[in-house]
């Protein structure tokens, strides 16, 4: 096997779980001069790694290790489009053995601008990284349309598989991929280059570097690339395709509940079965 260059593009997002309903509603209620809602204030909650991207980052590490066992070299790169909040994550990835780390600098919030994000990623791949395989999460939080992987693939002219849950190396620089499809599991063997959009993968957690790993690789540099560096006119693109938040509505998650009576667990189980489960089972 020859050397393979893998790039993982990831997003650092606010921890939306830490927002209260009141925070969401406040964001929906405050109108701006243009009549749009203000948007939810997320700067007070901590940042986390987008869960699908976290899977992609760990899958890439495992892919690299599996190739190393076969004597094949792999170059691992990580790219995140965002502000300085992404840098601790990039440092962590360098400590874990990623040999390239880059931050795509964006002068404006790109939460609702998939075309701009995709253009930055694609141009980085084409002009700077020259990767063979691009992994990224299939979507990145409530503000994400899930279209970035497709747009990147289109811009690069590469094939794209989505809802990827497993990636294995093959001896000849191809990869075997498992994807969730509507009617089951799809297994495919792919020639590179390609884009893989990772979904609910079995691997969902990124490993953690030791303090020793961090110390050993603390001098590794994070490259900063701007839209101008890549020839992407971010401000112009945003003007061409403005995205306005019209409003937010709370999802009614209330569910009816019944408290089952009975003296013993056996009695309660009987009531549960007779009055709730039996009819459901009979319909199956």
């Amino acid at each position: 096997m020859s050397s393979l260059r893998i790039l993982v593009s990831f997003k650092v997002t606010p921890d939306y779980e830490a927002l209260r309903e009141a925070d969401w509603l406040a964001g929906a209620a405050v109108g701006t001069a243009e009549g749009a809602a203000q948007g939810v204030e997320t700067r007070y909650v901590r940042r986390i790694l987008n869960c699908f991207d976290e899977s992609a980052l760990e899958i890439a590490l495992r892919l690299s290790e599996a190739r190393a066992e076969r004597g094949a070299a792999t170059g691992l790169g990580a790219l995140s489009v965002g502000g300085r909040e992404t840098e601790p994550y990039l440092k962590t990835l360098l400590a874990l053995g990623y040999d390239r780390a880059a931050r795509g600098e964006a002068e404006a919030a790109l939460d609702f601008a998939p075309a701009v994000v995709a253009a930055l990623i694609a141009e980085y791949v084409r002009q700077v990284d020259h990767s063979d395989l691009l992994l990224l999460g299939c979507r990145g939080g409530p503000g994400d349309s899930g279209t970035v992987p497709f747009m990147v693939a289109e811009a690069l002219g590469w094939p794209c598989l989505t809802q990827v849950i497993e990636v294995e190396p093959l001896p000849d620089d191809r990869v075997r991929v498992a994807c969730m499809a509507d009617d089951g599991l799809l297994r495919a063997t792919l020639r590179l280059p390609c884009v893989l959009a990772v979904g609910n993968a079995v691997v969902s957690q990124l490993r953690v570097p030791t303090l020793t790993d961090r110390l050993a690789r603390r001098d590794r540099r994070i490259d900063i690339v701007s839209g101008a560096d890549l020839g992407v006119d971010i401000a112009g693109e945003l003007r061409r395709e403005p995205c306005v938040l019209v409003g937010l509505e709370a999802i009614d998650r209330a569910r009816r509940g019944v408290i089952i009576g009975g003296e013993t667990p056996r009695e309660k189980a009987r009531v549960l079965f007779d009055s709730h489960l039996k009819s459901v089972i009979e319909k199956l």
Partner: protein
Amino acid sequence: MPLSREAVVEGLQRIVGPEDVITDEHILVQSSVDNFRKLQNIFDVHTMPVPAAIVMARSTAKVAEILRFADENGVNVIPRTGATATEGGLESAVADSVIIDGSPMNQIVSIDAYNMQATCQCGAPLQALEDRVREQGLTTGHSPQSKPVAHMGGLVATRSIGQFSTLYGGIEDMVVGLEAVFPGGQVTRIKNVPRRAAGPDIRHVVIGNEGALCFITEVTVKLFPYFPENNTFLGWTLKDMKTGFEALRAVMVSGFKPSVARVYDPGDAGIHFSHFAAEDDCVLLFMAEGPAGIARATAEGIATVVAGFPECKPVEAAYIETWFNDLCWDASKIVAEDERIRQTRNVNRTTEISADWGSINDIYQAAKARIIAEIPDITMMGGHSSHSYINGANMYFNYFFNVVDVGPEQETDKYYLPIIGIICEETLKRGGSIVHHHGIGKARTPWVKDEYGSSYYILETLKHAFDPNGIMNVGTIIPK
């Protein structure tokens, strides 16, 4: 001649009926450990003796009968309610132990808003009690991170403390009376009075006994007026923990009573506050609460005191408030954490100690340096101080390590216990206490004699007096 496992189960079934004696092997194996050896449950690799049964206790009278049976037959019993212990207090140290589970005794007996006290059974979840008293504009003032899952009996038995302790105190300041059952079935009730000077305060024989002396069946705790609308948060970033401890001390000795007073070191702050703090920042934070005038004056007073430390740079209060609102861990967070450990073998552990103001920073610095130097595979070594007093504070060491080259069941021997050992040694060397609020359990018994010094005589005598046959939670507090 000890009873056989089967005879123990039969004896219990005669007392409470077969429905309330759990003998399912899987449940018993899982109940052989608590969070101290949580990797054994996460990876399903077990090494501890399997209990003979779990008996569900539904009344004080039944607890008394069970304890009489256990005492007469030399059966080790392990009292538990919410089962959230972290220091091995719920481990079965000897074969064929019986776990007495008080979680069915979950009634809130009374909420007395006039006398400002609430009585509940041992299995009442703290969250349920807090929710009920809040309906009346009151609070227990007790808010450990385990609030969504812990029960009142266990909270009293482990001498727990909550996030608002600097104002309301620990559980020992809240319990006014209780009921407990001692070996042999002796039921004792300590009445609810504001204070008394009728000899030693016998509540303290029970509070913090960790199931090694008795089984707590009912507790009465104080209630306080609740003014959430007046809660005021304050926060600063700063560059070193020594200044942080100095600022905490300055606030405390100036006579202010924040409900929360904390300082986080850069490692721990990196987990919680990286969205506003730099990589090498510590974070100092406070919360003031109470009636409007008091909350306002407290917040203003704290701000004035901290202004005397120019190194401290203020941050927007909303950062602290938003973070604080999401601090408690519930069942879903526990499940997510278990999955994280299963996949990464990266384990988060904590150890909390206390010491006077003159020693606390030295203990923090010394223990941290030794752990980084001596323990392999550390991925984060940090901590915070979360409870302040007029004469000192606690230090809550928070650390992560990768479990490498050993099975998950060996995690405690290779990493956790050696780290606890370093923290205990550095604490004892400087006159501090090896346990601030988790209890001794079984994990910290190797250091308990040094912790107590000559007063160990009192502890040992209590154990012999109340549990002469040694059936109460063998190996907990007192080494096996």
